[in-house]
């Protein structure tokens, strides 16, 4: 069921007026607050604003969330560090993917609760996981206290060793092998394409060449996913300024307008209970976005689609209508359609697989870079020499999904 139609989706009153990003690296050894301040000041300056102009603050996922290095600094710490005086503030981990923080900011701006909202997402998972990589469970650090027991949703998967989102997404992938004949040669193009683009992104975590043969020879994590299907934990912070669209003419670069948000979750909010095992919430988020705009999938000049795991990217390709249901395998086969000069330039900064797990916000940043024509060596140029005018961004996977359509300039 769709909400009642509106004359104009109010998110269109919001633009991304500035973007910023800290250093990004495998293990920077800097605090999350330090990285956040770097990204925030970069974004504020990019928008041509001063600290005193910022009257809103929003982040994902907020205080106390997740495993070490996952959450970034809570918004009160950032407010205090930057000396912000706020009319509106928000932080949280529930909602339509990581970009929920941008969505909340856009709605706050549209409602007149704030004029310029600083939105950030910071990770220090590279440093937190240490030189030994991700910590296993139960192997060390027990200290004689015994292994803890689990409640809430994790109790349904942990006893069976379904410990990671990698396992859950692998099951989506295997279902796609079964229903649609997806092959590893097809799926591997997401990683290969990301690596090819990452070579032109100076901040990328991995930029050495990756061939399809390299991909096929990589160690298996959980079938059908191999190492290169899983994103690269890193340290870094990304910030954007969400402002009222009436600032667009004051900027020294094109404003990036939020054309439509995709926020729906019409199936069950669960990995193993969602009705369609091959799509999940991406289906609903994408459908709800297209219900709010006259733009069509064919108008999109570049797509920045969540690739925490490669399978999620192909789910988004279908959900957003860039190819038919079940047709993403043939669509990406050979990699031509998703290359920078292809039909749908995809994850042009390398995505999270090679660019680093900036957790959704790296993709938002890159969409703005491309729409502003500031991609340098990796700038997408559309047929006829055109700079991209419409970008689709998607965050999340499984029962967590959000998407938005961005345009160059206010329409």
């Amino acid at each position: 069921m769709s909400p009642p139609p509106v004359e104009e989706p109010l998110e269109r009153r919001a633009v991304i007026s500035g973007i910023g990003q800290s250093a990004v690296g495998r293990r920077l050894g800097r605090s999350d607050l330090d990285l956040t301040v770097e990204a925030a000041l970069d974004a504020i300056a990019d928008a041509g604003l001063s600290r005193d102009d910022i009257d809103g603050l929003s982040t994902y996922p907020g205080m106390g969330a997740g495993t070490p290095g996952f959450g970034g600094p809570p918004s009160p710490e950032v407010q205090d560090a930057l000396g912000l005086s706020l009319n509106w503030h928000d932080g949280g981990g529930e909602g339509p993917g990581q970009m929920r923080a941008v969505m909340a900011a856009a709605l706050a701006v549209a409602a007149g609760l704030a004029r310029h909202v600083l939105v950030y997402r910071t990770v220090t998972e590279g440093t937190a996981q240490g030189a030994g990589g991700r910590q296993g469970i139960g192997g060390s650090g027990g200290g004689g206290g015994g292994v803890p027991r689990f409640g809430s949703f994790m109790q349904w998967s942990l006893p069976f060793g379904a410990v990671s989102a990698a396992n859950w997404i692998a099951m989506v992938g295997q279902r796609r092998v079964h229903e649609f004949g997806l092959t590893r040669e097809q799926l591997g193009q997401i990683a290969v394409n990301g690596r090819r683009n990452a070579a032109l992104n100076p901040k990328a975590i991995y930029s050495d060449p990756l061939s399809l043969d390299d991909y096929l020879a990589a160690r298996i994590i959980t079938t059908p996913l191999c190492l290169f299907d899983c994103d690269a934990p890193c340290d870094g912070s990304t910030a954007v300024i969400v402002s009222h669209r009436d600032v667009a003419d004051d900027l020294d670069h094109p404003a990036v307008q939020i054309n439509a948000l995709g926020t729906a979750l019409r199936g069950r909010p669960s990995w193993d209970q969602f009705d369609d095992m091959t799509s999940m919430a991406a289906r609903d988020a994408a459908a709800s976005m297209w219900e709010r705009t006259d733009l069509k999938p064919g108008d999109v000049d570049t797509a920045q689609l969540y690739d925490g795991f490669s399978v999620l990217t192909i789910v988004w390709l279908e959900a957003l209508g860039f190819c038919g249901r079940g047709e993403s395998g043939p669509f990406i086969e050979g990699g031509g359609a998703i290359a920078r000069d292809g039909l749908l330039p995809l994850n042009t900064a390398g995505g999270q697989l090679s660019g680093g797990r900036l957790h959704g916000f790296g993709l938002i940043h890159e969409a703005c870079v491309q729409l502003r024509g500031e991609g340098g060596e990796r700038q997408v140029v559309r047929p006829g020499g055109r700079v991209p005018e419409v970008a689709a961004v998607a965050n999340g996977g499984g029962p967590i999904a959000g998407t938005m359509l961005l345009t160059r300039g206010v329409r």
Partner: protein
Amino acid sequence: MVANGPMLRLLPRLDDDVAFYWTSGEDGVLRLLHCNACGFFIHPPGPVCPRCLSRDVAPEAVSGRGHVETFTVNHQQWIPGSDPYIIAWVSIDEQPDVRLTTNLIDVEPEDVRIGMPVRVVFEQAEDVWLPLFTPEGAS
């Protein structure tokens, strides 16, 4: 030869609303929460039927038969010391939109097919009976 599961079973807390489920296998029977008003199986368990909103819900025995909806063979050492093991989503025959995350046991990965019939087998770990599944017809 793959293992029946991870080398360490991380166990549920047996909170009041789920204890029946995790201990149901003590007598060899799988039970799911069931709506007495409309007959819907509610999983995970909750205080209300999400279909008809009745609060008249109680555990009910099911056959323990189901089908493999999808699976993965885990190789990563999330739990150090584990040999590869098979994780699956199994649908319950009484209501196939209920799926259990589980392990497939006594079967090799190359013999697993999506759609294959399976039946429940319980593995006791401390005070928990974990519902695992094995191919129908296996001994």
